[in-house]
């Protein structure tokens, strides 16, 4: 996985409501990016 200190790769994706979310829009805030394997499974 990417290591601490690495510049987080920028991205732009649609969310579950069809809204566009860009990492660059979160600038100045801490972001938790949570990868999960499959919707509606534990974790």
């Amino acid at each position, binding site marked *: 996985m990417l290591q601490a200190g690495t510049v*987080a790769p920028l991205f732009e994706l649609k969310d579950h409501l069809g809204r566009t979310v860009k990492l660059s829009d979160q600038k100045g805030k801490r972001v938790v990016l949570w990868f999960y394997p499959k919707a509606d499974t534990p974790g």
Partner: protein
Amino acid sequence: MLGISFDTQAENKAFAEKFGYDFPLLCDTERTVGIAYKAADHPKDKYAKRYTYVIGADGKIEQAIDTKDPAGQAAELLKQL
């Protein structure tokens, strides 16, 4: 907080509604972001790895958490907030 998986918008919408999540669930159906963050090795990977990143206000990764223990993962993250 941003959730991200390789699921479709409809699958993630159902997931968010079921658990009452009020944060965005991103639909990385092409796996491009998953690959950039090494949560996938290949565009045809079925599932994302259980990786969580804390990205600082400076745009750098502060913490990279790899866990197969969802409860531990949640507890760890709650400490950050």
